[in-house]
């Protein structure tokens, strides 16, 4: 195998390869450290982090569906202070980029989180805008371009770090939302977040999730996510990270060919804790076979 470049730039964020692990399934990274070499990853997106610790939803929190998984974890996390004290020092030992996913229930909370994490030595922020805004009666921030713009602007003002807005797929027009983030100063967008969904136990007549509804992830989402990435890259000039149902290098390459600068792997870590490393190696072998020595030649190479 000749020398192959896998390094990519996603806005201001430089990655040694385009494969990150997505926020949520990968916890704080330390859980997977006995099973994979975290140094090999392009980046780790840390579990959704809020200002205060959050307890999460009542069980059951998981339901498997064909080729996918419904979850209603409820954004349980230890809060930003404990994250910085107990989890971040471990993550910093590794030669990989650390992106912290943040969420809040008011614009102020997003702003405070951005400020708090600014000089902690992390490499980027990913902003989850799928949460309900308590000030407007719980309507999700992410469905309103004005709110997305406002959050983006406030976060970007409070940090020097690259900022990525993680988009919810449950919107009328994802391009409008992505444009709002772009115009407000985001370095890029990552998509998609899990798709709101539910499942019923026909014998008890109850929802299968303790929270009634949850978020669908996994390979069953991939074609939808891919099309949303495509919609954004062909309409806007904003770097995109593709997320949704990646379980192997072929899936990752589909996103890259469509035009995502990087990809994130989420629930596939459950089936195979080493999936991200296998995807990186698979991409490398693919490039070698194709006689291409730079991943950037593949990104956005879709022939239509």
């Amino acid at each position, binding site marked *: 195998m000749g020398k192959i470049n896998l390094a990519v730039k996603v806005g201001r964020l430089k990655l040694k390869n385009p494969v990150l692990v997505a926020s949520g399934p990968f916890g704080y990274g330390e859980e997977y450290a006995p099973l994979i070499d975290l140094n090999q990853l392009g980046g780790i997106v840390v579990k959704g982090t809020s200002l205060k610790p959050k307890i*999460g939803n*009542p069980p059951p*929190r*998981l339901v*498997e569906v064909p080729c996918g998984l419904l979850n209603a*974890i409820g954004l349980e996390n230890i809060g930003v202070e404990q994250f910085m004290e107990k989890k971040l020092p471990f993550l910093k030992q590794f030669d990989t980029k650390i992106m912290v996913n943040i969420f809040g229930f008011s614009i102020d909370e997003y702003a405070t989180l951005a400020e708090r994490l600014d000089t902690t030595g992390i490499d980027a922020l990913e902003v989850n805008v799928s949460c309900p805004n308590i000030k407007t009666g719980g309507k999700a921030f992410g469905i309103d371009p004005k709110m997305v713009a406002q959050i983006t602007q406030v976060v970007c003002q409070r940090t020097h770090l690259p900022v990525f807005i993680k988009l919810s797929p449950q919107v009328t027009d994802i391009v409008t939302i992505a444009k709002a983030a772009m115009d407000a100063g985001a370095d890029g967008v990552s998509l998609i977040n899990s798709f709101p969904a539910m499942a019923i136990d026909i014998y008890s007549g109850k929802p299968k999730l303790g929270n009634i509804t949850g978020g669908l992830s996994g390979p069953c989402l991939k074609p939808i996510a891919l099309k949303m990435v495509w919609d954004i890259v062909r309409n806007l000039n904003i770097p995109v990270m593709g997320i949704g149902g990646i379980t192997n290098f072929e899936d990752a390459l589909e996103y890259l060919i469509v035009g995502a600068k990087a990809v994130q792997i989420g629930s596939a870590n*459950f089936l195979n804790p080493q999936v991200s490393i296998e995807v990186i190696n698979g991409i490398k072998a693919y490039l070698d076979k194709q006689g291409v020595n730079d991943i950037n030649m593949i990104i956005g190479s879709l022939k239509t």
Partner: protein
Amino acid sequence: MILERAKIGEQRHFIEEGTEDFYLLTLIAPNIAREAKPGQFVMIKASYTLDPFLRRPFSIFFCEGEKIVLLYKVVGKGTNLMSNWRGGEEVSVLGPLGRGFQIMAECPQWLVAGGTGIAPLYFLGAELAKRGIGFQFIWGLRYKVAQGLLDLLNEKLGSLVIYTEDGSMGDQGLVTSGVEALYEKQKPAGIYACGPWPMLKALAFWAKKENIPMQVSLETQMACGIGACLGCIVEGKDGYKKLCQQGPVFKAEEIKWER
């Protein structure tokens, strides 16, 4: 915690006319087998395809040398696929996971199993026997099991007290009534239990009333098995607990039994 390519050894299907059926699966996974302790579990990818999507958690039934043995019933897609394994196939196994039983030294201990809840308790019973800790094994079932399975259990556990709901083997009734009957004759120093929630709940209340220390092995839906996803939480008295990491074995008094 090890991710290992395991080879399927043999699989036995215990079924006779009118019995509950159980599968006994042997996996060659030397690295996991070396470390596994009673009460710990493994997660198995039942298919290389994406449906079923997640790994399946199984308590370890027994370990010997390079072998891990699992005892299971077919309950869904994953176990259905597994029941067709004939030996020689390779599968991905993650384990040993979770915290196992804390072995109590006082005699006698009672091991109380409901249905497939026997899996972790067999491993524990074998360990207690090895250490010379006296115990009584009580197993509750809906109906009888094949003689071959019973012979296998007797080998390591000695004689079992069996309760079946239809009375087709052992005494008729629920395992919880068996426990109360046995209590007339013997006072246990501790109880280890695994089985359906209503059984564990009833036992937990009874053990508390009689002031007997009790450990339970629980199960729930699970995705990662290693404490990352927070999908497998159970309600403890002092908040949510990660079943995969803080369990699957808990002290009965840690758990909030009312649901």
